[in-house]
């Protein structure tokens, strides 16, 4: 199965002990909560801070299988592994974690064959100087996604050949999806 193989391959990026973190308790609790109707447990909302590593997720609950968090420096290595395994790039986006003062860029990869496996790669950069290496050399299709993420979040993709606004006007200097954006 490709899923195990990928977990194996991606874990090698994390030489630290115990790369495969157990699914956090809070997730399981949420799944239960989802199962038994609509009872909310707001006290369980506090998620322990994510550490870098590979996480196996339940596809039925989340829609993806492998969740990788890593430093921007390791991104290219991880993407190369994924590229070699024959994944296609689904999308790139960002999330503004304003409380943690971090910007997260999220990469989705999926497969064309029937061996279902969706990999999510996340990497976080500080909010005041967000910068991530570009993967458009490996996946040319990432070019537009990165430009879009740059538009919306201001994340700089180092090495991108043409990082000008794509969806926003060409002279735009604002990033609308930042949580502190005011038009």
């Amino acid at each position: 199965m490709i899923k195990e193989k990928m977990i194996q391959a991606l874990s090698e990026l994390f030489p630290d002990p115990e790369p495969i973190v157990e699914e956090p308790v809070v997730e399981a609790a949420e799944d239960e909560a989802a199962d038994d109707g609509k009872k909310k447990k707001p006290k369980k909302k506090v998620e322990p801070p994510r550490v870098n590593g590979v996480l196996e997720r339940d596809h039925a609950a989340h829609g993806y299988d492998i969740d990788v968090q890593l430093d921007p420096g390791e991104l290219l290595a991880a993407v190369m592994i994924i590229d070699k395994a024959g994944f296609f790039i689904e999308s790139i986006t960002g999330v503004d974690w304003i409380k943690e003062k971090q910007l997260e860029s999220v990469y989705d990869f999926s497969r064309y064959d029937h061996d279902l496996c969706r990999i999510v790669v996340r990497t976080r950069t500080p909010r005041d100087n967000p910068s991530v290496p570009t993967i458009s050399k490996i996946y040319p299709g990432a070019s537009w996604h990165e430009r879009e993420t740059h538009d919306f979040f201001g994340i700089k993709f180092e090495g991108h050949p043409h990082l000008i606004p794509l969806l926003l006007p060409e002279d735009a200097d604002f990033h609308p999806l930042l949580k502190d954006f005011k038009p």
Partner: protein
Amino acid sequence: MDQGSLQVGTQNVPSPLEPIPSSVVQFAAADKLINLGRVNSFWPLTFGIACCAIEMMATGCARFDMSRFGAEVFRPSPRQADLMIVAGTVTKKMMPGIKVLYDQMPEPKWVMALGNCAISGGPFAFEGQYSIVLGADTFLPVDIYIPGCPPRPEALLQGILDLENKVSGWNRWKDPEKA
């Protein structure tokens, strides 16, 4: 629509109800004839922006058939068009382009705002919106508004009939129920 409604407009732009640029011939009868000629051959600009453009195309097609009124000659070049149908949301990035297209159309020309987005930004006018223009009438002299999201093809046809009436004062068809 009588000319009295001239004063009620609230837009900053020059009122769309300005008299049509008159041609060389100034005689009333000739003017009337010219206006009749004009209203019976509105050639729209092929210019679709969003959802409403699909209904515009549906209007041009067999079931509703704009061609009955001589208005099916969709011209891709603004030089040959008489009627600009702004069908869809106007974004700030697109606005200069639309303005250029409008300027390229030869007089006399008319503008139709089709759909809620073109009238006032529609459902996309929300807090935090930075991208769209709140209505085509902020930068174009709109002659007729057709609401809906999107409007039905009949509404577009009704708009053309109303515009014909407005330009020439001639009624193509009187609704027997309203009369």
